[in-house]
């Protein structure tokens, strides 16, 4: 093994590898990487990869790289890294045995590790072949060409509860109600004229404080129909107050309210001279 480690014999080494049955074309494109080259070379040794002569493999590899560099300028860096490492490994393998422990793994272990990697890559290669040889779908075996699709009958079940039905009925009626515009429902007002006239007639009798509510006319309770009933109580009250305020302004009436929303009291205005005298 050592005798083949001669740089000048590189070319022969590659040829030897080729003759050994491995079509080792010196074309880096044919290899995925240095490990693939090593595997191809290792196969040429025709031994169990785990019992490979690493030194011989290193020689073969270096020869291969040399040849590759002869023909091409650029060789990928990892090929050169591997070359350097193999050179180093080989030199250590050739050194006399006793090595100091603890520094680096023994050369033999490194060699075994390399052999293991080659075995592993070889296994991947075989797995590739085995996979490729399998009956592949669409290439060797075929599934049903005219598959009958399962027909999906989608029946949609409608959800609806009585509550929803009732809600729909009521909400529809509410909207109808909101839409309805009923002019007939207008409120009949107690005319201001009538209130003024009535209050003037009552004025002489309003000697003391009398509540406004007591003076305003009441709606006719006898009438059953809304139309016959006439103005509402609120309208009577509002018109009477309005007429009363006019008379306060004229000085004919006095009005007082103790607080907001409290009863409003009115009485005939006291004469001015009396008021002055009183002061």
């Amino acid at each position, binding site marked *: 093994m050592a005798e083949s480690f001669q740089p000048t014999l590189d070319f022969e080494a590659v040829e030897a590898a080729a003759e050994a049955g491995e079509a080792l074309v010196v074309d880096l494109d044919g290899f995925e990487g240095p490990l693939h080259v090593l595997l191809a070379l290792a196969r040429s040794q025709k031994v169990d990869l785990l019992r490979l002569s690493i030194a011989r493999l290193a020689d073969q590899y270096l020869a291969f790289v040399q040849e590759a560099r002869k023909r091409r300028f650029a060789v990928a860096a990892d090929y050169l890294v591997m070359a350097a490492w193999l050179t180093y490994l080989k030199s250590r393998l050739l050194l006399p045995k006793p090595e100091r422990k603890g520094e680096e793994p023994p050369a033999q272990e490194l060699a075994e590790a390399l052999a293991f990697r080659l075995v592993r890559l070889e296994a991947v290669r075989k797995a590739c072949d085995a996979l490729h040889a399998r009956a592949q779908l669409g290439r060797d075996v075929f*599934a049903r060409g005219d598959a009958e699709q399962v027909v999906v*009958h989608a029946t949609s079940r409608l959800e609806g509860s009585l509550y929803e*039905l*009732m*809600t729909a009925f009521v909400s529809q009626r509410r*909207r*109808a109600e909101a839409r309805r515009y009923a002019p007939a429902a207008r409120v009949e007002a107690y005319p201001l004229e009538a209130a003024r006239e009535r209050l003037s007639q009552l004025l002489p009798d309003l000697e003391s404080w009398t509540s406004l509510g007591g003076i305003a006319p009441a709606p006719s309770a006898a009438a059953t129909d809304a139309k016959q009933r006439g103005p509402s109580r609120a309208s009577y009250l509002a018109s009477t107050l309005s007429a009363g305020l006019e008379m306060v302004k004229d000085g004919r009436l006095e009005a007082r309210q103790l607080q907001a929303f409290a009863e409003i009291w009115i009485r005939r205005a006291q004469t001015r001279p009396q008021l002055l005298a009183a002061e």
Partner: protein
Amino acid sequence: MSEDASAEVERSVEALLFAAAEPLSVGDLAARLPEGWDVGRAIAGLRARYAGRGVELVCVADRWQFRTAPDLAHLMTEERQDTRRLSKAAMETLAIIAYHQPVTRAEIEAVRGVGLSRGTLDLLLEIGWVRIRGRRRSPGRPATFGTTDAFLEHFGLPSLADLPGAQEMKAAGLLDRDMPHGFVVPRPEGAPAADEDPLADGDVPEFHQDYLGEG
């Protein structure tokens, strides 16, 4: 031809028919097989072999194909049920039909105050909750609508008289706020109304006349 050889023709034809994207004629099959192979006999053999199986070899327009047995068609369908809700418009229309029946399209629109899209009535008829009951004895003889037994079943009602009335609506809190003016829950008429002619045989209402043209 030997026994083995004819078995080989048969399984070749079997594979070709299985993988083909469409039915194959005897000529198609012969063209893809070595010359002299008896395709006709292979087909006869396959027919016999598959007779009564889950898959059968059938001839359609002079071409052969494997099809699943007709009696297993139910396996090829998948029932899928999804629930959906009626739209608000459809639910309201249903409610009006339920409570006011018999009711014409124009009356439904009058109650709702908006036009009725054709799809809404269609949908209710299609679901089977609403039916055409008859015709109103009035100009144009419009179709009258009412609810079906399926409607009663779905809503769990023994009869139309069991439709919830104002009391139930109040109890359900639907009338809590202000009661709509003049709120009355009408009593639906199950029997033909006085001014209604039941639908006679063959008196199929036409869409344009009865669903759209009227009112």
